[in-house]
């Protein structure tokens, strides 16, 4: 089976996010990027599938800060090919990103494209269903389990309350991964460094294309503690609990 994992970087939410002077974007000075955690799950699920059924795994990402390391890490974990897309310019939306990914995959064959179920900056929609609609492939979001059986895929999708639905899916297909069957593996730095020396990243250069992106009017942090009355200590907390009759 030929597997493709689409990966993207996101601002690390552990950091304090600040808005820049335009009032419409995150202040780049305070940004630290990290792999979208759901994409990490998608990669893990792809690796597990590859290990179970054999096949070839390609990871794809758009160039940017630390993207090389992200791709080498995926290679160190067991991906066979890493594809870096450059020349795209600033990416403004999910649909823009989806178009870039589909273009870069245009002359490749694949059975299954995996990516994270969502990203924290999905302003205009999710990557998996957008890519799927663009290439005309079936797509399922919120996937927590994939099995490959006799040319078809058995896919588990999660609803609320822990209810799961099971589908048969005919490849080629796109799946948005919510959680891999196991915690995403860790790639030891020594291995990543070694891969960095021995492997090369494939690159494709696409023409800049700003895509259809809608104007951001403003970006604001939700007012801190908008609703919450801030308490100074556990004693105050106890008082609140008493006043609410729960203690």
């Amino acid at each position, binding site marked *: 089976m030929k597997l493709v994992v689409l990966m993207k970087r996101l601002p690390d*939410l552990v950091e*304090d*996010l600040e808005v820049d002077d335009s009032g419409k974007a*995150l202040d780049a000075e305070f940004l630290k990027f990290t792999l979208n955690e759901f994409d990490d799950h998608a990669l893990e699920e792809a690796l597990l599938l590859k290990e179970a059924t054999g096949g070839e795994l390609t990871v794809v990402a758009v160039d940017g800060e630390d993207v090389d390391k992200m791709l080498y890490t995926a290679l160190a974990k067991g991906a066979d090919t890493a594809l870096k897309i450059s020349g795209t310019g600033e990416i403004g939306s*999910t*649909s823009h990103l989806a178009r870039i990914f589909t273009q870069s995959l245009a002359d490749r064959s694949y059975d299954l494209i995996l990516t994270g179920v969502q990203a*924290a*900056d*999905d*302003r*205009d*929609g*999710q990557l998996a*269903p*957008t890519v*799927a*609609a663009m290439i005309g492939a*079936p*797509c*399922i*979001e*919120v996937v927590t389990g994939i099995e490959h059986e006799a040319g078809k895929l058995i896919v588990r*999708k*999660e*609803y*609320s*309350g*822990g*209810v*799961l*639905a*099971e*589908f048969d*899916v005919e490849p080629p*297909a796109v799946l*948005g991964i919510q959680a891999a069957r196991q*915690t995403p593996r860790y790639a030891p730095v020594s291995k990543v460094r070694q891969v960095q020396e021995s492997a090369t990243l494939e690159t494709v250069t696409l023409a800049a294309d700003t895509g259809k992106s*809608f*104007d*951001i*009017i*403003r*970006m*604001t*942090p*939700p007012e*801190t*503690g908008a*609703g*919450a*009355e*801030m*308490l100074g*200590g*556990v004693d105050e*907390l106890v008082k609140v*609990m008493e006043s*609410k009759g*729960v*203690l």
Partner: protein
Amino acid sequence: MGNDILVVAEHLGGTLSDTTFELLGMAKKLASQTGGSTVAALIGGDDTMLSQLGAADLVVRVGGGEIADFNPEVHGAALEAVVAAKQPRIVLIGYTSMGMDLASHLAVKADLAAASFAIGIEAGDSVVVTSQLYGGKMNVTTDLGSGPCVVSVLAGSAPADDGRAHGPPASEDLAVPPTAGKIRFRRLIEPEAGDVDITAQDMLVAIGRGIGNKDDVEVAEALAEALGAAVAGSRPLIDAGWLPKTRQVGKSGLKVSPKLYLALGISGAPEHIEGMKSSSTIIAVNTDKHAPIFNFAHYGMVADLFDVCEELTEIVEEKKG
């Protein structure tokens, strides 16, 4: 393009979801702004569902029992057909597991402008949507132009009561469009019955990734025991196997509304908030003063959850004698 607002009715196991009514309430408000009407798309639904969609001016029915079980391919094509037939200005879809399969698909296929993670929509000359991005750390307001557009709305963004009205509305039928059959529904798998029903508790001690370590779940258990509460948690803890699935609160977990929801080390991602925002009293403890959870809690405290747990457990135990 007309001025109508189209709502996608969502159902599972024969029941319409709360989100459907939230969206209907929202749609009615928007329709009054655009001067259009509120249309609901009921795909694979039945008459009982139809009778509950009284808030809509018109319900477009596509198929019935034969496509009752959600199928992204079939339901996606059906929705495309509805949109093609009705040409609404705004399509509202819940940001739910099913909604995620439909919204972006529709946006591409029907060439609609799109917004996700929405918590508020205004429809004037243009449609302006506020989305809660970055795990709830930023609100981003986008101008989608005049339309048509599709917006996926976070659950709990509007009161469901505004969208509940009985009496079967006017309805019309559309044929189920043919599809290639690349996705086939197999079955639903219900979760195994849980040890504790967290939806029936008066008090929940809810823990998130801030707990850091599987062993430290004990600390929360001790507090819960002292309080006579149950322990619930955010999704990452369940994914890591630190708590059973039956304890998960949120979008893909359970919706709870206890008297007291004590959120310890939970950042307050929209998917979590969805499951607990209707609790009577929410108290949040987090070391990060910018944690979005403080925007939803009634009371907040910037502190280490372990210190709070420990001190509180002691005080509660003392009070009990």
